[in-house]
């Protein structure tokens, strides 16, 4: 097998992994702050993908250009979900939260089936079939654009949490809930804001993913599972960990498929997860429980 194929496949896996990472970043942000596991995460991404498809089909609006408006829509959805549905469950046992979010996920999948039907839908932009050739390296143009957009969104999110007052307040809630209350932070609002930001991340990731893969309603649960694998690998609640987990899963799937059999490429991602759980249970960049 020619040597350049390894580089081609690794680069492809890395670019896909960046988008995976952004999707998982939303899950990690929500869990790290609100301590609620969003079992409707993949379904929310599917909603974003359908928004991208619908905007393109009806108005020819490029999903990558519409990434910000779609993220805003998902932010509003996430904010309202937290305020209206999840907030009353914050102090309830985990199984109640789990059932609530699973119910929301089911409603989303079936709602999408009713509205859009079961057929796979795709976005065919002017660059859908483009690729860049650098020497013998062929890189899918859509993956390059989506990967670059994922890096930009992740950088903006890191900057938001590090440099803005609201970002610092959210981090304070995550670090010390009681302390945040004592200093007078409006934790309820900050939780809703955090859920909205996590949803916005997944909205941006969905817009990017819409140019990479065809969308069907059943994609949601598969992406929820993928997001869990990534955040557990990278480290629960760790933002850099989510990005790293995405990259590792993307590259592992790609190279696993190349070296062994492509039909079992998901097996390698789960194999990586098992190894991480065995040797570093808190995840690669996760904090060891005190």
């Amino acid at each position, binding site marked *: *097998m*020619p040597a350049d*194929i390894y580089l*081609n*496949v690794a680069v*492809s*896996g890395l670019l*896909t992994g960046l988008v995976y990472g952004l999707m998982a970043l939303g899950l990690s942000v929500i*869990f790290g702050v609100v301590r609620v*596991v969003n*079992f409707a995460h993949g379904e929310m991404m599917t909603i974003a993908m359908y928004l991208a498809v619908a905007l393109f089909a009806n108005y020819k609006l490029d999903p990558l250009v519409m990434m910000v408006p779609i993220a805003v829509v998902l932010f509003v959805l996430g904010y309202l979900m937290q305020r209206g549905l999840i907030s009353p469950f914050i*102090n*309830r*046992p*985990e199984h109640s939260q*789990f059932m609530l979010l*699973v119910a929301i*996920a*089911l409603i989303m*999948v079936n709602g999408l*089936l009713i509205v859009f039907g*079961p*057929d*796979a839908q*795709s976005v065919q932009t002017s660059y859908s*079939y*483009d*690729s860049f*050739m650098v020497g013998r390296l*062929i890189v*899918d*143009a859509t993956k390059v654009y989506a990967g670059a957009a994922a890096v930009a969104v992740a950088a903006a999110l890191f900057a938001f949490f590090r440099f803005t007052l609201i970002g610092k307040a959210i981090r304070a809630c995550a670090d010390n*809930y*009681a302390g945040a*209350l004592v200093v007078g932070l409006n934790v309820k609002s900050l939780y809703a804001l955090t859920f909205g930001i996590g949803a916005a991340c997944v909205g941006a990731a969905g817009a990017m993913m819409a140019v*990479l*893969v*065809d969308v*069907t*309603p*059943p994609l*949601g*649960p598969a992406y*929820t*599972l993928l997001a*869990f*694998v990534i955040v*557990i690998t990278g480290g*629960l609640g760790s933002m850099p960990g989510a990005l790293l987990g995405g990259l590792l899963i993307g590259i592992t*799937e*790609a190279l696993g*498929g*190349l070296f062994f059999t*492509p*039909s079992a*490429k*998901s097996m390698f991602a789960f194999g990586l997860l098992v190894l991480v*759980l065995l040797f570093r*249970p*808190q995840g690669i960049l996760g904090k060891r429980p005190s």
Partner: protein
Amino acid sequence: MKKTLDSNSARTARPGVTRRRFSVGAGAAGLLAGTAPFSIGRAQGAALKVGVLLPRSGVQAGIGQDCQRGVEIAAGVLKDLGLPDLAIMNGDTESNVEVSRSRAERLISEGAQLLVGAFDSGHTTAIAQVAEQKGIPFVINIAAAPPITEQGYKFVFRNFPTAPMIVGDAFTNQKEVFELAGSAPKSVVFMHVNDTFGTAMKNGFGAAMPKFNMPYTMAEQIAYDPAARDLSVELAKAKATGAEALLVVSRLNDAILLTRELVKQRWTPMAVLSVGPGWYEDQYLKTLGKLSDGPMSFVPWYDPNKKVSKQLEAALAKAHPGINLNTNHIYTFEALLIAADAYKRAGSTDPKALADAIRATNITDNVSIGPGIKFDAKGQNATLKNAAIQNRDGKLVTVAPKAAASAKVEWPLAAYDKRT
């Protein structure tokens, strides 16, 4: 202040989300992957109640809905043939084996007197077990895995070629195409879905290829997940083999994905030779436009010269303008034709009488290529024949066998980067 402290206590007192709980929850979330909408059933008067099981949602939804078109156009044509009415009860297998089994049981409990379906070999195998257990006749529209009719079932009938029949005909038709084209690939890379159908076809290729003295060697076999969202690695691996042509056994979504990757990875093989669905489907043609031109499919097809074929073409053109008549419509229609014909001869909805009538079927006024519909002792119609068809400007033309050809083969595949 007290209120704040109380709420704080409640907050800190609740058990934390541990990694174990999180992981258990994550596993449970995976179970959601099999969920989808409920099917809708309907029945009419004293007509024979036929449960039609198809993958109407899930990864095979596109093909399942295409098969449904065959159901929709059947009523008028059956009436013209003087056959009794059928009351169709729709069932959705959701592209899932377990759902197929439960939907079959549900349709029977709701009164279905005969089952038809189910496009996918895995789903069909599950339904066949239920039908046999309940003693309800099951007429398979499309499913090629040989074991389905090797179990000694008394209530299962298949009017569709088995994988070895399809593969044998495919090799014969390929050699004819190579002869017509004046050249042949020296090597092929074989890509196939790793579901029941794909595996059965792979085994069929392995067993049959040495007997046919094909001009090419198989550089590599690459199996892939039919539900894959990205086939870039698979195609990169195929391209790296240096094979001259691509031999595929695929479904619809993966056929589209593979074509996109061919374009993106700048590889135009000498030919795309498909033995199965996907590459001739209307959704493939519409989604890819000019990029859909060229692939050849070696598949069970219809004889355009038969009277019923013309009736079906007219009915489809009226109900679904712009849609090409294809395997999905033909074999789904023929399954209903078999049901109506048996019901007429049996004069009863008794399952055993219906099964006996199906076993004695001898329909010559049909659509598929071959002498007609009749079943052997195993419940298999062993007289069916394939054709080689090629995508041409959004239409499908027959290029082999020579006797049924409607156009000359275009060879080799036009470069993807030079299509406008």
